[in-house]
């Protein structure tokens, strides 16, 4: 049923940021039909970035991050019930309570969940946590407030690093174990990951890189862990921060191009079926999607970014109720931020889509800098550390495929380091404990990306 849809039935599966923004946008675009939003958590949509920051610091309650609405979505909320299947012929979403919801258009926005510790018995020990939901954050914050002797964080991606930062700010001893060579290396490459390692150690983190955790110890209660280098960590709290798993299992029999890397869709957010044929009535947005981006050689991107969830949901909603020629592409340049150890880190573009990097402004020594990433002579990303106000300039350079390295002449008296780019040193994600928050799911620029399903 292609074309303009003003009335009829729309179902959104996923009641977090992307689901909410899509629902609002549908009403804003004049959709007057029935709108149902399904979410497996029992709460109304809430914001996740504070869960690893203000909530762990005790500055905000875990249940106080409810998302504000810009526009009353006038939806029927089916919260606390899981979607278990999709019948693409009958155009119905099946729910865990046995009900089925008919739709004219469907939006899949089921996002991700925390990757669990692979050993279920060890994962069940009291004191072992993951961090994804507000309940997770509430439990972890309570445990941190109780003053543990030491926290072990497994995985030094953004979430793991932010958790470690919160622990140190609360004066709690923390060990971070990461299989890769340095924190954040999967997202930022070698140069900035060394800065990240330095700032963790400067803040008193016991950072162990190049190791894996081989076992979690405890008898009912977590007491410590064994590392692959033969050492042992005594700790009373363990946070498993090994990245995310996409919530696609419910689509197993739906005939869609859905797999561990997400649900593939076109630039207009329409899902592909398993034959690579685009569907007309099933749309995808947010962390669960993977979509082609022209700035990055049309590779399929999977982004776990707040900004992408918002932008893609708005495009998907617009396209769900607009006839073909009025549909829009989702072309937003990826943006994310993190705050940890007193640093504000912001990124635009895809730093892992690079072969070289230069420090264009500031310096590593000053702990304030702009790192610009290039691939085969054009700018593909920029990361700022405590210099976010310059990011818009570099975004424009990315959007216009400006030459790499950027020309000299920055107003902060920076010498012409831009003449000396160095390899960006982006590792294969297979070698990391932390799952990448940006996955290029075609091929990496200089090597074939072979990981499809992580061993777990």
């Amino acid at each position, binding site marked *: 049923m292609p074309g303009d849809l003003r009335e009829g039935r729309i179902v959104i599966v996923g009641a977090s940021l992307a689901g909410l923004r899509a629902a609002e946008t549908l009403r804003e675009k004049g959709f007057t039909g029935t709108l149902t939003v399904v979410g497996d958590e029992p709460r109304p949509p809430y914001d996740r970035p504070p869960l690893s920051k203000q909530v762990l610091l005790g500055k905000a309650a875990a249940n106080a991050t409810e998302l504000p609405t810009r526009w009353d979505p006038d939806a029927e909320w089916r919260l606390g019930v899981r979607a278990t299947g999709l019948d693409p012929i009958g155009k119905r979403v099946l729910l865990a309570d046995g009900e089925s919801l008919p739709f004219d258009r469907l939006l899949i926005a089921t996002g991700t969940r925390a990757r669990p510790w692979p050993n279920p018995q060890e994962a069940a020990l009291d004191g072992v946590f993951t961090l994804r939901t507000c309940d997770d954050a509430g439990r972890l914050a309570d445990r941190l407030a109780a003053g543990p002797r030491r926290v072990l964080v497994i995985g030094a991606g953004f979430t793991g690093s932010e958790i470690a930062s919160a622990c140190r700010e609360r004066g709690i001893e923390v060990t971070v174990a990461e299989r890769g060579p340095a924190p954040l290396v999967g997202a930022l490459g070698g140069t900035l990951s060394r800065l990240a390692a330095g700032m963790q150690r400067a803040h008193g983190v016991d950072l162990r890189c190049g190791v894996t955790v081989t076992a979690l110890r405890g008898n009912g209660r977590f007491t410590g862990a064994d590392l692959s280098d033969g050492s042992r960590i005594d700790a009373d709290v363990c946070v498993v921060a090994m990245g995310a798993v996409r919530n696609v299992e419910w689509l197993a029999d739906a005939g869609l191009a859905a797999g561990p890397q997400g649900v593939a869709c076109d630039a207009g957010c329409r899902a592909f079926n398993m034959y690579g044929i685009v569907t007309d009535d099933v749309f995808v947005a947010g962390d669960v999607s993977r979509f082609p981006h022209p700035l990055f050689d049309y590779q399929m991107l999977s982004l776990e970014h707040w900004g992408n969830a918002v932008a893609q949901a708005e495009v998907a909603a617009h396209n769900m109720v607009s006839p073909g020629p009025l549909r829009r592409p989702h072309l937003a340049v990826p943006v994310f931020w993190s705050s940890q150890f007193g640093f504000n880190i912001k990124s635009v573009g895809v730093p892992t889509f690079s072969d070289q990097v230069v420090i264009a*402004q*500031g310096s590593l020594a000053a702990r304030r800098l702009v790192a610009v990433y290039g691939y085969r002579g054009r700018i593909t990303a920029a990361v700022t550390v405590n*210099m976010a106000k310059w990011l818009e*300039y570099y975004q424009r350079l990315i959007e216009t495929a400006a030459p790499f390295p950027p020309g000299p002449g*920055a*107003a902060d008296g920076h010498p012409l380091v831009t003449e000396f780019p160095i390899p960006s040193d982006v590792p294969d994600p297979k070698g990391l404990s932390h799952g990448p928050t940006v996955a290029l799911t075609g091929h990496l620029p200089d090597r074939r990306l072979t990981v499809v399903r992580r061993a777990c």
Partner: protein
Amino acid sequence: MAVDTLLERINDYASRPDPYPLYAELREVGVARQTDGSYLVGGYYDIAALFHDPRLSSDRRNRAAEFAAPMPQQPSFIQLDDPEHHRLRGLATRPFGPPHSPGRVDAMRGEITGITDQLIASLQGRTRIDIVDDFAYPLPVTVICRLLGVPRDDEPVFHTWATTIIDSLDLTSGADHDERTRAADRAREEMGRYLVGLAEQRRGRPGDDMLSAFINAPKPAALTHDELAATAVLLLIAGHETTVNLITNGVLTLLRHPDQLDLLRREPALLPGAVEELLRYEPPVQLLPQRTPLTDLEVADTTIPKGVPVVLVLASGNRDPKRFRDPDRFDPTRPDNQHLGFGSGIHICYGAPLARIEAQIALGALIPRLGTATLVEDPPPYRHSPVLRGPRHLPIELSPSRG
């Protein structure tokens, strides 16, 4: 007329009441080289991009020899680039805003309301008032005096210095201008000595004012005497010579748009949006005259050469139809109003949170009393500066019953 005389025409005092047709002329070409060698930029997107362009310096010492302009020995942070700008602005922000003083400005709401109420009470029974002298000027002056810790009674002294400094902010050159610049330098020096003197009195005996915080800051966070002088002069001038225009332009604009005045009287909740619209429609800082490219820049298909003065005409960008629908319409309910009134990038207005609160409270208190008010003169007489543009006086008649 040729676009290379736009700057002269903007600077012409006769243009003060309505410079907007000149800005429209500028937007026709986007970038316009002037007879004195400087470049005007007037398009919203070009200005917004330049705010984030690290190749555009705020430090006049980067100008080519033929455009050299004297700089004070210790420039204030708005005249500097990073990293020096970052260090000084960071120190200046410690007692004013986040991360060290996050609640400071918000905590002043009660005090600003009190000052506003007193000013309104003093107007009781009068049928003719000057919005500038009776209200829009004394309000921010009293606020900035309390915030910095400057005796309110010294206003006649520092106001003379401030006027001299502001009057030097025009865009002409020549003997007349050089004389004004020298006078401004002397005024800046005297004002700096005065403010450092006040701060010194509080060394070891701090009050809750910002001068106390500056002089008693622990060593690594301490400003030198020269830095303190430059920073305090900047804050005192910016704190009271800009908000006066925002409030006065607000009253003038509302009296020119009785339907919108009526709307705001009925729906005071629209006031914050109305203040943003004023910052777009009649920005107190019309243009930023002191940027310099460090390398040749491509802007709107024009190459602006390294080392020349670049003037960012904020008030023109704010009326750019490519960004704002119906830009010459004053619409307090305008959605998506990301104006350039406070600038953007690393030099974004330091005092913006305070200015917003002051204007919201001031206009909120005045609006219920403006129902029967009429402008005595339209346009009113304007101040000299085309940069910090606003009426010198704004006489209005109030009906006796509403007082």
